[in-house]
């Protein structure tokens, strides 16, 4: 029996030793990345680097993922702990200010290696978005904004089928007070979007091939507020003006009204109150919903035969619908920066320098990423960003403000409070944050 103990002990010791030995001769640089289509795309770029230039540089890059849930909390916690567990951090625009104390400006490293020109490949505005206190803290990797994704097969039918058009007119007259004609998605106003959503909801239109006309993302999450902000800004609304909250406005009420029309008429699945990116995609890819307004990253999932076998060839995309002030779409950038506490900043910056090249970014784009690089990014996307893009208030309180909005808005979306009350409470909370 004693022999068995010894064997077990030996095995454990060997395991310990083994886990330490699994490290090669090269320097290993760890990059934290957002889990999703973006990390899949980046993995390809990383693999290529490791096989080619990485060998020259003597660097191997390892990607690290956290769970999507609580991703930013965990990163913040890790950085606050002065962690060395990753060398490249992941600071999107909206938390750049908050993370800056734990990041190191990257321009000096580019300069040291004579690679300052590399940064020219990015759109100017995106580099600005990744700066704080006049220092560049991160390389933009993706420009994140929204598009309308819809079933082009169904919309085609709707436009060309007289019966359907007639019914569409009846439904829009009844629910929106105005008889509408079906239009191409690129020309939609929010009313058209609502009309489409109502028409393709089975409980309203018995003949609808889909159960729900759309799927809204209503979970208590700042990313979902960013989508709602598209509606808000398209009606001329704002969140912050002159360092005070400007949220509670007729525009905001109108924006909420649009959402509630869809929610209260069951044009979005009842579980939408728990939905975000993944669920919205699933609703569309499973054929349950006929449209969604989602982050551009969704496009690759929705049009992939492997991931959306039922609808991959039926997905159309269009700009986010227009309000009284035209089309407006929220923009933020995802990016990678240097962890101040890392011991391998020089090596890590080598990889960043590699990333800031047209070749690397082209590869990233080809694999599903959306880098804000001229000549790489789709003209269509570039135009959207150019014509319609906006940023909400950028400051240290950006995320807390969005969080308060998420809290109160999701309450009214789930019909717990009325629109007016929710806006008032959010307004108050924002002012409190700005006052601190």
């Amino acid at each position, binding site marked *: 029996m004693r022999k068995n103990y010894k064997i077990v002990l030996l095995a454990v010791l060997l395991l310990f030793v083994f886990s330490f030995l699994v490290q090669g001769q090269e320097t290993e640089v760890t990059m934290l990345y957002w889990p999703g289509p973006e990390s899949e795309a980046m993995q390809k770029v990383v693999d290529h680097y490791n096989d080619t230039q990485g060998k020259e540089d003597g660097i191997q890059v390892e990607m690290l993922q956290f769970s999507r849930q*609580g991703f930013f909390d965990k990163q913040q916690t890790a950085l606050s702990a002065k962690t060395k567990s990753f060398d490249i951090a992941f600071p999107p625009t909206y938390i750049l200010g908050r993370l800056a104390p734990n990041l190191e400006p990257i321009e000096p490293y580019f300069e040291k290696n004579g690679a300052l020109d590399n940064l020219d490949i990015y759109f100017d505005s995106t580099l600005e978005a990744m700066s704080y206190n006049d220092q560049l803290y991160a390389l933009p990797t993706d420009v994140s904004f929204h598009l309308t994704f819809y079933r082009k097969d169904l919309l085609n039918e709707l436009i060309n089928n007289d019966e359907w058009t007639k019914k569409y007119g009846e439904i829009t007259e009844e629910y929106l007070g105005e008889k509408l004609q079906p239009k191409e998605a690129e020309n939609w106003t929010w009313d058209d979007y609502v009309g489409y959503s109502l028409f393709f909801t089975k409980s309203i239109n018995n003949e609808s091939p889909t159960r729900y006309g759309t799927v809204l993302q209503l979970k208590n999450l700042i990313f979902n507020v960013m989508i709602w902000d598209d509606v808000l800004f398209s009606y001329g609304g704002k969140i912050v003006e002159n360092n005070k909250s400007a949220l509670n406005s007729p525009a905001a009420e109108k924006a909420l009204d649009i959402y509630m029309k869809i929610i209260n008429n069951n044009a979005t699945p009842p579980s939408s109150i728990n939905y975000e990116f993944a669920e919205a995609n699933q609703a569309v890819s499973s054929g349950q919903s006929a449209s969604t307004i989602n982050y551009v990253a969704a496009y690759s999932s929705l049009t992939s035969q492997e991931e959306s076998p039922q609808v991959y060839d039926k997905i159309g995309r269009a700009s986010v619908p227009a309000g009284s002030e035209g089309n407006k779409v929220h923009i933020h950038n995802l990016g990678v920066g240097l962890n101040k506490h890392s011991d391998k900043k020089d090596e890590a910056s080598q990889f960043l320098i590699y990333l800031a090249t047209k070749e690397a970014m082209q590869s990233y784009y080809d694999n599903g990423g959306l880098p804000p690089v001229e000549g790489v990014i789709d003209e269509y996307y570039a135009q959207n960003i150019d014509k319609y893009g906006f940023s909400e208030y950028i400051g240290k309180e950006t995320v807390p403000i969005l969080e308060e909005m998420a809290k109160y808005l999701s309450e009214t979306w789930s019909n717990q409070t009325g629109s007016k009350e929710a806006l008032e409470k959010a307004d108050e909370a924002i002012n409190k944050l700005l006052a601190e």
Partner: protein
Amino acid sequence: MNFLIKILNDEKYIKYFLIAPLILLLLFILGFPSIYDLVFSFFKVELGSLDNVQYNGIKNFTEVFNDSEFWSSVEFSFKFTVTAVLLEIILGLSIALFFFSYLKKFKWLISFMLLPMMTAPALMGIMFRLLLNDFVGVIPQYLSILGFPGITFLTREHVYKTLIIIDIIQWTPFVFILVFAGLQTISKDIIEASKIDGANAFQRFESIILPTITPILVTAGFFRFIDTFRIFDKIYVLTGGGPGNYTTSISIYIYKMAFSYGNIGKSIAASLFLLLFSLIPLYISLKFIIRKDLD
């Protein structure tokens, strides 16, 4: 070296050396955090700037005391715990009685009943996330076929019941096993004798079975209570405390306060409140549960 060996074997000191490692470990892992908790509950500390502290007096405590979300989390934890534990006791007892009468022979089946409790609660939460998924989940699909379409398990309407059922599935076996083990200690002869004496099932239950299992039920209930009160894993993984704050248990509240909102001082103050609440079961445990005959 020799001196050391001599000291180590000295009868007078040995007893302290034997217990020293334990005490040292506890001082390290338990002592420092306790002191830190006590001291910094009076300071204003943020997660992003742990080295900047400002004296805050009792402001952290008043903030927590006035935070309606704190009290909702306490209410949630309490209600959830009481409901779940009661149901688990009733269910566990019933199953144990059933098994006992009919299936004493099939001991191997017991292994299957042990499985749910040996699963990590966090994993149990994820398993249900899969089961309840609107698109690929088995439960919504079958409910739909059976005529209950569109039940939204994780919305305010149903999430509480959903969580209770999940906890029941995982922990009823705990009560079951304990009661079953206890029932086995009841000698067959006594039961036979009572049958001969003409006692019917109910009387047998009352006078023989009940006295044996009551202490077991109380103990099981007690342990389930303290365990469920601090529930975190299962709920966090499934709902994140939501929708909104609807399913935020007190542990989730403390966690979020520190790691999501970064308000360390407030989180610690809330922890101390929780510690205060825990003194009650601690006291009960010390007084009644611990074996008194420790001589």
